[in-house]
């Protein structure tokens, strides 16, 4: 079986959340992990995503300052409209 070389970096970006949520099949997990095993850039992205989930997961709505919330919402709205 060919593992690791059948998956590319852009797929890792798409799969990382599913991986962390345990939503991938065993075969998909193997391919994902083998790519991470040699790809420094994807390992960094994987680490950052896991750290972000761990950090954000402890926040409550009241922890976010109002001005930061406004700026984030503005950014997301602009991004969805293709302006950012």
């Amino acid at each position, binding site marked *: 079986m060919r593992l690791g070389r059948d998956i590319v970096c852009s797929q890792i970006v798409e799969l990382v959340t599913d991986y962390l949520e345990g939503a991938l099949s065993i075969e998909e997990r193997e391919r994902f992990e083998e790519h991470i095993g040699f790809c*420094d850039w994807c390992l960094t992205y994987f680490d950052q995503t896991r750290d972000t989930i761990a950090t954000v997961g402890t926040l409550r709505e009241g922890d976010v300052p109002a001005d930061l919330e406004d700026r984030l919402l503005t950014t997301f709205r602009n991004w969805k409209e293709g302006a950012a």
Partner: protein
Amino acid sequence: MIAYKFLRPGRIGPFSGTQWPAPGVWLESEAVAVCATGVHACRIGDLPFWLGLGDLWEIELDGQIEEDARKLVASCGRLVRRVEEWSPASADAFRAACAAEALRRAQLNPDLAGIARDVGLTGSPSMAAFMGARTAELDEGPSGYEAERIRQAEWLAGALHLKH
């Protein structure tokens, strides 16, 4: 059984996020399943596939041990020692050895000149190992890929004085 494992700084499992206890303290898993649960580790032949994951540790496995194509999974494991020989200097020597092997192939097969040049340009040992194996595969077919991975593992075993 002696095996090897790559851990992120702070003895963190690269995929599970588990922090390993100090050397000598057993880490136990209730079940063993590849890529799902259990203590995942490497034979020497598996090392080239996982080089990018961090610090290299010698570990001891016990209990139920399953052998997979490119990894071991056990119900118990404990750290023995960090393999200090896997250092920036030895990693760079390994990267250079991968590049030299790719260049050797390219001298015999000019079609490989492009990828061999790329192997020499990467600063990443794990990427050089992967690209070196792909170079061998382009040269000799799938058996070339596997043979190059074995050659890489033998290089690591010798340079890092690993126990078979």
